[in-house]
C-alpha cells in the first residue's frame, strides 16, 4: 500500500524538502530555507500549505 510520510509534514514549495509542522499551528517556517508559510489543516492531523506568510 502507500508509502506515506507523516501527515503533519508539509513539503516546502521553495526547496521541496519536507518538514514537520506543530499541531494546530497556523504558520510554520521551513528549517531548510527559512521560507515562512501560513498553514491550514484539511483534517486535524494533516497540515497543508495555505500561502506565504
Amino acid at each position: 500500500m502507500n508509502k506515506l510520510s507523516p501527515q503533519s509534514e508539509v513539503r516546502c514549495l521553495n526547496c521541496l524538502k519536507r518538514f514537520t509542522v506543530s499541531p494546530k499551528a497556523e504558520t510554520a517556517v521551513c528549517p531548510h530555507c527559512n521560507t515562512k508559510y501560513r498553514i491550514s489543516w484539511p483534517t486535524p492531523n494533516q497540515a497543508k500549505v495555505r500561502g506565504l506568510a
Partner: protein
Amino acid sequence: MVIKMVWNREILYINLSTGKISSRTVPKIIRTRYLGGRGVNMYMLFNHLTPKTDPLSPDNVLLVGAGLLAGIPCLGSGRCDIGAKSPLTGAVGDSNIGGFFAPELRFAGFDHIVITGKTSKPVYLLIKNRDIQIKDASHIWGQDTFETQKIIRQDEDDENIKSLVIGAAGENLVKFANVRTGMKNSAGRTGMGCVMGSKNLKAIAVRGTTTLEFTHPDELLEYCKQMNTMITSTRWAKAQSRWGTMIIYSNTNTTGLIRTKNFQLNQLEEGQDLEPENIDKYSIGTSGCYGCAVHCRHRYVLKEGPYAPLYGEGPEYTSLGAFGTMVNCNKMETILVANHLVNKYGVDTLETGGLIAWAMELYEKGIINDKATDGLKLEWGNEEAVYEMIRKITYREGFGNILADGFKAAITKIGSESKYYAIQIKGMSNLHSDERPTPSFALGIATSTRGADHLRSRPAIDMYGLPEELLEEVYGGHVASDYNSYDGKDRMVWWQELLYAVTDSIGVCKFQTVFCAVHAPQWKEFSNLINLTTGLNFSKNQLMEIGERIYTIERLFNSREGFSRKDDNLPERYFKEPTTLGLSAARNKKISMEKFNKMLDGYYKLHSWDSNGVPTRESLKKLDLDHEPSNLV
C-alpha cells in the same frame, strides 16, 4: 435481466436525419485494441469521418462512450467520453465527463452512442433500456442546463433519469459550448456542446434498470475496497475531499505557477480570498461522482449580494483561474457567480476565461477600445464586465459574437496584432497554469492532440521533487527530479499520455491515478480491475500499447486534417517573456526554444513518429493501424 459487463454491451447508432436507429455488440477485436470510452470513440471518429468534414455539418459524428469500467464501485468510475471533430480547432474533439450518466447508459445496455445527421427541429433522445425514442424538445429549447434536466425528469415522471444536455451556448453554436450533466459535471473542452447544437439535439436522457454482471464479483468488490482505501489514505485525497481541486491554487499561487492578467504575471499578489479554505463560508457540504470515495465537489450557496440567492457546485481549480487570476479578480464570490453562469449557459469555463483575459489585455494595450467592446470597460478586475462577457458570448451579442468563435477566428477579426497575446495552441486556450518554469508541463500542452490542454498528459508528480530512482521505476527511464529541468521530461509526457489514454478509456477519474500521488493506481491496478470486471487479461505492456494505439490514431486524425510539428508549439511569449514573481524555482523562467525542440524530438522518437510528428509506417504496423480506416464498427 442481467447484462454481462463486456460481451453484451452494444453500440447504439442513431441517424437524426432519417430517424433510423440500430445497434450492435462491440466486437472483441475493438475491445482488445481500444477498451472503451475514449479509445473506442477515437477509433470511430477516425473511421466515420472523411477528411475535411465541416464540424457543424450533419456529417460530423457525435460519439458518446462509457468507460470499460464504468459502474464499478471505485476510482470515480462514472466517466463518459464525448467525441466529434472539434468545431473550435478542426482537430480531434474529445471531452471526458464525470457524474452518473455513463453507468446509467450501461445499465440500459449500451456502451456507446453514435449520432449522425441533423433534425429539422429541436429534439432530445430518450433511452429507457431497449426503448429508444427521438422526442420533440421545442419546450426545453432555450432552457438552461439545470432546468432542462429537471423538465425531462418531470416529463418522464422519473427522478432517476440522467441526462447529457446543452444550454444556450450550444443552441447558439458557440464553438466552445460544453455538454453538461447534473449540477456541476461538464464535458467542457473542444466544443462538443456546439456539435450537439448543430444537430438540434438538446439532450440525451437515459434510464437503465438492468444489472451489470462482473466476471469475479466477490474479488472485485474486495479489490475496489482496497483501491478506495489506497486513494483516501493519500494526503492529496484528504485535502481534495476537504476543499476540492481548488487546493492546487495553494501550491501554484504560492510558488508563482499561475497565469495572472492573461500572461503578464505568474502570481496573484492579493489573492488570499481565492484560497480554497475560503469556500467554507459558502459550502453546505460536498458530493461526488459515481464510484468516488473522495467527493471533491462543494455544494455552495450565495445568500447575499446582487446574484443571491444562488446555488452552485464546485468550483473547480479551473474556474478559480479562469475568473480569478486570469482576469485579475481576487474575490471568491466572483468565482462562484461566474462558475454558476458558465454552468447554467453550458459554455467551457477555461475557453471563456481565457478569451476574456485575452480581450482585457488587448483593451489595456489599446488594440481594442470601447467601440469594439460595445462600451464595456474590459479592465482588470472588473467582475461585472466578466459576467456580462459570459452572457454576451453565450448569446453571441456584439463583441461576444467575435469571441464566441474562439481564438483563431477572433484573431482574424480583431487583427494580427492581437495574435501575440493569445495563449492558445491549435486554436484552444490553455489552463491558467504558467508552464514557463516546468518544461514537462510545457511539452504536454504543446503536443496534446486536442489543443492546449493539461488533461492529456500532465505529470503533476513532477512538482514533488521525487527521488530519481523512484521516477525511473515509474517512467521506465531516467527523469530528472528537478521540475525546472528538461532532462527526461519527454519520456514523462509520453508515458503520461499513454496512461491517460487508457484512463479515459476505462472510465476512471484521473485524480485517482498517478496524476497526483506516485503510489496511486496505474497500469497494474488497471489490469487487475479490468480482469476482475470483464475477464479480459492485459499485461502492463499490453495496456501501454493500447494507450499508444489510441494516441496514435488521434494523431493520425490530426495529420489527416493538416496538423503537424508546426502545431506542436507554444505561444511565442513562453520563449520571450520570463516570469517575474514567485519563489526562486518559478521566478525569472522562460522556455528555451532549443531545449524545447530537443525535447520534442525525443518525444516523437518515444512515440515512434517521424521528425515531423507523423506516425511512421513501421509504428502503424506494430499497432495494427496500417489498414485504417478498417470500419469495424
